[in-house]
């Protein structure tokens, strides 16, 4: 009887659930399985068997070593880290200032400012490309890391401000009243009371932002020309041109590019999902 009630609640019968889910996940992940197998085969094996989903006969781990060292994947990964980490930290800190103002102060343009932040994050990037290039060039930060980082920080402010402001509004106002009566300044309240309460939501935001900025292709394409500065997405796109027929190396390169966001996702999955549903927007 207890079992019957449970089944009613959940809807899908247990057997159906396992059969359908196994099939679904298997089909959905075929592309990734093919990538893993391809990255571990020699070119001879790929050309002779012609079946991309076959398990490698000889596991060629040296493909990863070659791509990392000879093809220069290590440099691209390092460049991506140099771009991504300061961008995430910067956008979190700066957006928390704006979110605080929008969450706790009543002023005439409050709603208008919020709408501007939200609308900005949804517009097509093509509207920004030429002017941002020109601006960066006139400031002489085109083709430099700070140029890309500053852009990412600024552009991601839209989503982060919206996200943090929504979170801060749930903080009970009474928490702010005591320090207020004690004569604490607004900035002290922000740093001492609000920021510590936002740690978990900022962690969720950091996971999302890290993935988005890590995966960015377009802005590196526009703002970085020199090969020495290219991030892993752009390096991989170039590699496809250069090593067009070395499927095993491109596969190994793809997996290296995917590995860090993947590890991040697996470690912080709960935050990742929370972040996506709170804002209901993505990049």
């Amino acid at each position, binding site marked *: 009887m207890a079992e019957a009630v449970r089944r*009613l609640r*959940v*809807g*899908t019968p247990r057997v159906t659930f*396992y059969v*359908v889910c196994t099939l679904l*996940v298997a089909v*959905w992940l*075929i*592309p*990734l399985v093919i*990538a893993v197998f391809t990255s571990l085969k020699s070119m001879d094996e790929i050309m002779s068997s*012609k079946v*991309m*989903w076959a398990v490698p006969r000889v596991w060629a781990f040296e493909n990863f070593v070659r791509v990392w060292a000879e093809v220069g994947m290590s440099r691209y990964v390092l460049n991506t880290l140099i771009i991504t980490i300061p961008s995430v930290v910067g956008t979190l800190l700066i*957006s928390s*200032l*704006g979110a605080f*103002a929008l969450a*706790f*102060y009543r*002023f005439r343009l409050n709603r208008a400012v919020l*709408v501007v932040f*939200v609308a*900005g994050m*949804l*517009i*097509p990037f*093509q*509207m920004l*490309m*030429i*002017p*941002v290039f*020109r*601006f960066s*060039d*006139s400031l002489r930060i085109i083709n430099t890391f700070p140029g890309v980082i*500053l852009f990412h*920080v*600024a*552009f991601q*402010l*839209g989503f982060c401000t919206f996200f943090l402001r929504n979170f801060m509004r749930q903080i009970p106002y009474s928490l702010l009243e005591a320090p207020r009566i004690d004569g604490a300044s607004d900035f002290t*309240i922000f740093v001492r009371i609000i920021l510590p309460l936002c740690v978990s939501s900022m962690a969720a935001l950091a996971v999302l932002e890290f993935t988005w900025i*890590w*995966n960015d*292709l*377009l802005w590196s394409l526009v703002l970085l020309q020199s090969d020495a500065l290219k991030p892993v997405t*752009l390096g*991989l796109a170039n590699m496809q041109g250069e090593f067009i027929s070395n499927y095993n190396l*491109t596969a190994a390169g793809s997996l290296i590019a*995917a590995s860090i*966001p*993947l590890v991040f996702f*697996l470690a912080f999955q709960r935050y*990742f*999902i929370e972040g*996506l549903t709170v804002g209901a927007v*993505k990049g």
Partner: protein
Amino acid sequence: MRLGKRWWVPWAFLALPLAMYAIWVIAPIVESMVFAFTKQDSIMYGARFIGLRNFARLFSDPTFFLALRNNLAWLILFVLLPVPLGLFIAMLFNNSYGGNKLYKTLFYLPMTLSFTVIGTIWAWIYHPDFGALNSLLRGVGLPGLTRQWLGDKRYMTFALIAVGIWRQVPYVMILYLAGLNGVPPELVEASMVDGASWLQRLRHVVLPLLAPATVVAMTISVIDSLRAFDIVYVMTNTKARAAEVLASFMYSSAFHYSDYGYGSAIAVIQFLITFGFIIFYISRTFRSEIEQ
């Protein structure tokens, strides 16, 4: 809310974020709108005002209509397929069986990958000789259905959209799962006791309750479909113009053909099309707050 009494305090907090946003996002939008009325062969110098001529040229440019048509295909398929699929899969996952979490984690994986990685991987699926898709078709005795997926103008756009959908479905599913969290199980149970069929339950109980999630999922999918760029760039290298969408058409016009005014005009059209959906999304998002 009501914290400080001095009017300038919130503006002091907003100064840095607003200034950065104004410089890198708002001013560029205005600038692009101005550039759309100019002719400019160098990105930095020599803009000449030419009125509406860029737009007139667009409306007699077959590539523009091709991009527009392709974008329309992206938009329609991005709403028609990921939204019901995401809902179906979310309902499938909406239980507490053992292993549920693991299945979900695996299913989410594509969302964490960059389009460069995704494009690289899918290029092998579509490879005409030993790609998985054609091998599969030959294997099940349908060799007549094999195609040059990325080489044939007729199939290219659809091959790219399929890749986009592959990544979009898990995302829509997340939105629906969050929506299902708010559906009281008693309601669904009550309709089960009534003897309503699965389809009736879906139509009369679940779908109305999930309407807000559906609106968000659809709007986001539309906005995403209009922003499609990375997949097209990586998988066709924008050389094969048959798969061009507005975003990639703008990129190649400006950055390959150094036609910056023309590129800006394309961006403005793209912006105008998206704008309506953005307004709709914002009014939906804030409606509940205004009612409070």
